[in-house]
């Protein structure tokens, strides 16, 4: 104890990823709750480049960026029958990394965009774009319980926001992206994922996530240029 610290906020899904990873590996850690409106000296010192959460501190060494942290966790705690997060096979590993990058670069951005966009053609287009990115994930999960196979793996953790945070975004954006009709496999995966331990032990209250995203959406909308 004291060896592993996580600087984060419970509403943030990149931070949830790290908790899931640590808990799956059975690693004990101290959670240092960060107030993003008043960033701590520790956060700024540990992640001077981005000043963002999550940051993992292990034996005094800070690591930032959720995907980088997940690989670090997998590589550092790999004994004691610890469950491997990334696949063993190099090709499968490359695929997992590819889809993780796709999720962060395409899915997150397009879903956020669809949510933020206001009524009209712009919103329709944004929703179509988001659905298109998610359709790739539907194909990937087809025929599997988890992206990692029988057990939760790296890609499940990275995609995990779809099982809970997404529904909050859908509500705020007044859209529906993942449902049982359109994406039956992804929908099923989401239900399995969110109901599995230790995933379900790190879910923040819905109203906190609502408030967190609400603030962000209103901010972005207020910055948008007025249409003539």
């Amino acid at each position: 104890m004291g060896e592993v610290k996580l600087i984060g906020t419970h509403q943030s899904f990149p931070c949830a990823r790290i908790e899931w990873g640590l808990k799956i590996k059975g690693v004990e850690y101290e959670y240092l709750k960060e107030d993003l409106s008043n960033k701590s000296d520790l956060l700024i010192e540990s992640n001077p480049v981005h000043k963002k959460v999550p940051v993992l501190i292990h034996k005094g060494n800070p690591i930032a960026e959720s995907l980088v942290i997940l690989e670090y966790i997998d590589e550092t705690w790999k004994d004691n029958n610890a469950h491997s997060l990334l696949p063993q096979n190099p090709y499968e590993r490359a695929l997992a990394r590819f889809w993780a990058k796709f999720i962060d670069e395409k899915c997150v951005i397009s879903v956020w965009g669809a949510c933020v966009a206001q009524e009209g053609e712009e919103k329709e287009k944004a929703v179509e774009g988001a659905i298109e990115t998610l359709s790739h994930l539907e194909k990937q999960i087809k025929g599997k319980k988890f992206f990692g196979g029988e057990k939760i793996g790296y890609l499940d953790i990275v995609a995990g926001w779809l099982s809970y945070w997404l529904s909050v975004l859908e509500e705020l954006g007044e859209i529906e992206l993942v449902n049982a009709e359109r994406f039956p496999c992804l929908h099923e995966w989401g239900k399995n994922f969110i109901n599995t331990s230790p995933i379900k032990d790190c879910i923040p209250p819905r109203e906190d996530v609502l408030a967190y995203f609400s603030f962000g959406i209103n901010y972005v909308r207020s910055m948008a240029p007025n249409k003539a």
Partner: protein
Amino acid sequence: MAKSEVKLLGAWPSPFVLRARIALNIKSVDYEFLEETFQPKSQLLLQSNPVYKKIPVLIHENKPICESLIIVQYVDDVWSSGGPSILPADPYDRAIARFWATYVDDKLFPAMKSIAGAKGEEERKRLIKEVEEGLALLEDAFNKITSKGNNKLFFGGDQIGYLDIAFGSLLGWLRVTEITTGVKLFDQVNTPGLANWAERFCAHAAVKDVMPHTHKLLEFAKTLMTKLAPI
């Protein structure tokens, strides 16, 4: 391994394709280089990278691997005995290398790329400043990383590694940017550590034959600008 078992679909000006070539060279992998035609994109490209339709694509035993840094890690995994390790041995050093490689892709490269298309002098200056700040961070990172070990030659120690490849692949285009903006980004005054590292990197056996010459990249950039310029 038969040469045809490993193919790399790419284009000579691309820094991302260069990353894959350097990694394959480090591991002494025999491969077939397929120069992508573009206009239109080849069937092979569309089939092997349907999601992004971009190069590079490594095709190994008929399986495609996409995204340059993912390819580099794959090469390191598969041909582990073919040459020195590309990723550092220690998990923390690996995390640092991955962090900075992500920074290069997410921040440095996009800023550098946008300079040419900047709308107005103010935006141009802002982007140049962003690149300068990024290089200052990498200079700092280089000093920190090399002060840890005995070997101060590369980010990877005495051999080029993951971060050398991720960042070094941009050197040609950084030099083109210096020429087109008239701003010295990379030199003994601003970034002495990196300036010396850059020379060593470009002279490395795995790099020198595949790194495109700056004057060729400059010609290529001029052709691109002519094509993209409004009529």
